[in-house]
C-alpha cells in the first residue's frame, strides 16, 4: 500500500484502472510531472534507478513502468498526481 494524502492506495490497482489506450499518455504526463518537480530530494534511490531502467528499455508505458512513475510522482508531487488521475476518471 502507498500513501496518497490521507488515503492508503494500492498502486497496482490504480494501474489496472487506467484504460489501456491511455497508458502512453499517462506515462508521458507522469514523466512531465517528475521532470518538472523541484522536490528532487524526495526521489527514492530505488525508484530513480527503476525509472531509468524502464526508460532505457522502452517500458515506461507498461504497467510496471507506470507503477514506478506513479510511486515516484505521488512522493514528489502528490497533488499534481492526484489531479492527473482524477482527470482520467481514476478513483483514488
Amino acid at each position, binding site marked *: 500500500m502507498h500513501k496518497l494524502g490521507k488515503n492508503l492506495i494500492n498502486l497496482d490497482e490504480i494501474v489496472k484502472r487506467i484504460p489501456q489506450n491511455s497508458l502512453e499518455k499517462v506515462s508521458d504526463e507522469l514523466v512531465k510531472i517528475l*521532470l518538472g518537480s523541484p522536490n528532487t530530494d524526495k526521489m527514492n534511490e530505488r525508484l*530513480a534507478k527503476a*525509472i*531509468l531502467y524502464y526508460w*532505457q528499455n522502452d517500458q515506461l508505458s507498461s504497467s510496471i513502468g507506470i507503477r514506478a512513475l506513479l510511486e515516484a510522482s505521488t512522493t514528489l508531487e502528490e497533488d499534481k498526481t492526484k489531479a492527473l488521475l482524477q482527470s482520467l476518471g481514476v478513483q483514488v
Partner: protein
Amino acid sequence: MPKFGIEFVPTDAYWKVVYHAVQAEKAGYDYVWITDHFNNRNVYVLLTNIAIYTNKIKFGPGVTNPYMIHPIMTAQSMASLNEMAPGRVVCGLGTGDKTTLDMVGIERVKPLTAVKEAVQLIKEITTGKTVKFEGEVFKVAGARLNFKAITPIPIFIGAQGPKMLSLAAEIGDGVLINASNRKDFEDAMKYIKEGVEKAGKKLEDVEVVAATSFSASEDVKKAQKAATPVVAFIVAGSPELVLQRHNIPIESADKIREAIAKGMWKDVFSNVTPEMIEAFSISGTPDMCIEKLDQLAKIGVTLLITGSPIGPNVRDSINLIRKEIIPRLKK
C-alpha cells in the same frame, strides 16, 4: 552528413540529466557531453550512469580541464569508463572556465602548453604505458595504470583563439568550438586547416565541432527567451575581438557584465538584444535552426552540438529536434 551531439550542464538531479541523455540517444543523437564544473554534479558520476543506461551513444566530459583535474586522473576516469562502454567514450579537454577556476584560486598557467602536455599524458597513460614526463606544466615521475583502455579514446580539444584552434587540429581528434554563428567558424576554419597541415593530416581526420547555445521551439519568442540568460553570459565572457566580429558594441557588453557582477538579473536579461541572440545562439523554430545548422555544416562543421538551454522545456525540445531537425539534416 553532420553528426549530432547534445550537451548537458548537470545543475539538476542526476536522474533528470540521465533521463534526457537516454532521450537523446533515442532521438538519434550521436554524442552526449556533460560539462565539468566543480559546483555542479560530478561529471564522471553522470557519465557512469549514462554508460549504464544508454547503449550506443558516445559520451564524454565536455569539457574537462587539466588545471582542476590532473591529466593522470582524467586518464584514469576515461579508461575506467572505456571499460564500461568500449568505443563509446570520448574526452573533451580545454583550458577551463576562468570564472570557475578563479573561485578556487587556480590560475590558467601556459594554456597552450598545459593542453598539449595533458593530451600527451592522457594518450600515453591510457594505453597502459609507464609514463615519465618532464613538461613545463606537468611533471610525472613514473606513473602507470594497472589496466588500460580497451579501445582508443578520441580527444576533443576546446578552442577559441587562433593558436589553440591550430593546436587542437594538430594534436586532437576533434576541435570543439563554443560558438553558434557562421562568422566564428569561417574564421576558425583557417586555423584548423593550419593545424592539420602542420600535423600532416587531412581535414577529414579531425572532427570540427560546433558547441552551440541552442534553443528550439515552435514558438520563436519562447525559444529566444530561453536562450537569453545563456547569451547574456556568453556576451559577458566574450573578448572584444569576438564582440566586434558580431557588431556588438563594447558598452552593451559592459552593461551586462556590470549587471551580472551586481546580481541584477532583470538588468542582465533586459540588456540582451536580438542582435546578441542572433550572434551567440541558434534559437527559434525548427526551420530557423535548420538554416543556421546547415550553414555551419557547409562551412566544415562535422558535429553539431545542441547545447544549453536546448529549449524552453528540455524534454519537449529534444522531441522537436528528433522529429523536425535531425532527420532533415541527416538526409
